[in-house]
């Protein structure tokens, strides 16, 4: 479960590493990111022609400092990357491990502390003339403790072009990031409807899975009030999560985001993207089960 943390809060296994690296400045031009070190890492030790390459933006944060998720919540900015790739290479969207919540006074934002890896998949052409390729990105982020500073770094890596590739020295970081990447799981079913004060997300986990706690991180912008609690009510095999609405938000036909749930067998992060029904929420399981 992603706990609500306060800036300067939990010490994790990464904290020691972050402290060790804390004095290191990002090799950056432009505005100084003073408390976050950015680097670009690859999952493998070589590029294989015609095979996708997985790279990641790694952010190592000083203790007490954080950066933001794709939806930063009440304040902040998501981390952004502008890529510079060899001709014929094409990069997909950054992928976002599920975040934690930072509460400061009445405000709640979504992000990461200690360390995060934001992976991206790069399409590689079938024929590469060079023996080595260079992948580069300009990374912009906002780092906040209580105060916020914009951060920027130009990061790059070089990889040899080979017919075979092995896991690189940073492969363990990708394995860790994947454990926190939300997935699409057809075993989990979602439906959403409008209620007077917000939205009701009905969650049907796979048979035999009970939710102890759940929190929905909205990707749809300007829909929810992030600072409010999300009460979870169980009804048989289904769970209802009440998501309070942003009173000055924007109307949306869909609700998209990531459900992070604490189950009997650990933390699960699942993507949800559902149409918001306008009528009252249906309570009968039979009505909603589709053949």
């Amino acid at each position, binding site marked *: 479960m992603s706990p609500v943390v306060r800036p300067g809060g939990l010490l994790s296994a990464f904290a020691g590493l972050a402290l060790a690296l804390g004095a290191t400045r990002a090799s950056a031009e432009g*505005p100084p990111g003073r408390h976050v070190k950015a680097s670009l890492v690859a999952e493998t030790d070589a590029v294989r022609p015609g095979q996708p390459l997985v790279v990641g933006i790694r952010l190592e944060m000083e203790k007490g400092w954080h950066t933001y998720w794709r939806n930063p919540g*009440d*304040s*902040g*900015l998501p981390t952004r990357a502008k890529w510079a790739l060899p001709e014929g290479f094409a990069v997909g969207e950054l992928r976002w491990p599920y975040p934690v919540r930072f509460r*400061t*006074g*009445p*405000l709640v*934002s979504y992000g990461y502390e200690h360390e995060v890896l934001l992976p991206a998949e790069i399409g590689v052409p079938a024929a590469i003339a060079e023996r080595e390729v260079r992948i580069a990105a300009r990374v912009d982020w*906002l780092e*906040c403790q*209580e*105060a*916020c*500073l*914009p951060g920027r770094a130009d990061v790059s890596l070089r990889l040899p072009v080979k017919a075979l590739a092995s896991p690189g020295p940073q492969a363990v970081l990708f394995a860790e990031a994947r454990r926190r990447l939300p997935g699409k799981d057809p075993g989990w079913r979602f439906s959403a409807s409008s*209620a*007077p*004060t*917000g939205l009701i997300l009905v969650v049907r986990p796979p048979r035999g899975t009970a939710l102890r706690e759940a929190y929905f991180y909205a990707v749809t*912008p*300007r829909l929810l*009030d992030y*600072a*409010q*609690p999300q*009460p979870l*009510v169980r*009804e048989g095999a289904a769970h*209802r999560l*009440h998501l*309070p609405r942003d*009173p*000055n*938000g*924007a109307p949306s036909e869909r609700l998209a985001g990531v459900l992070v749930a604490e189950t009997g067998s650990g933390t699960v992060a699942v993507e949800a993207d559902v149409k918001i029904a306008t009528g009252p929420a249906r*309570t009968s399981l039979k009505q909603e089960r589709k053949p």
Partner: protein
Amino acid sequence: MRRLAFVLVVIAVFAAVVAAPAAAAAVVGQPAPAFTLTDSHGKPHSLADFKGKVVVLEWWNFECPFVGKHYGSGNMQKLQKEWTAKGVVWLTVSSSAPGKQGHVDGAKANALMKEKGGASTAVLLDHDGKVGKAYGAKTTPHMFVIDTKGALVYAGGIDDKPSTDQADIAAAKNYVAAAIAEVTAGKPVTTATSQPYGCGVKYAE
């Protein structure tokens, strides 16, 4: 019976959510929350004093880089000058609590505004954050526009380019300028809400 119990639980949960104090936010289309605050010269101002005028509220923290973007470029001061000259009341509000980033007393606020060439009608000191919370002010800047009848007609960001980069201002759509222009012309505001962006307001914990 179980169904009834469930319904009761749901009602209880909703009631608790509705009753939560943080839910009290100013809502566009409804009367703007009343307030009285002391300005940086020690003079009290009530929203009711400005009935018949268009009022702009600008949440401010001089140490926040998003505020720095709009003051460093002169963007905010330009808007303040332009619209106060046309009779709009522009209130810059500081909700930074004592000991928090951007906290100012009257003298500090006056010195900063003199240095920056600020042209607000007044800088209001909201040290306990009550007015900020009543409006649901989340970021610096976070902008609100109130019409001549006291209704909130705009709540959101200053523009559509969430960044700290001054270079983004030229191509940005300034929602606040558009809302003031429309409301002073007696027209409905086209974009009445937008995503506020910036540093979190530094309320007391």
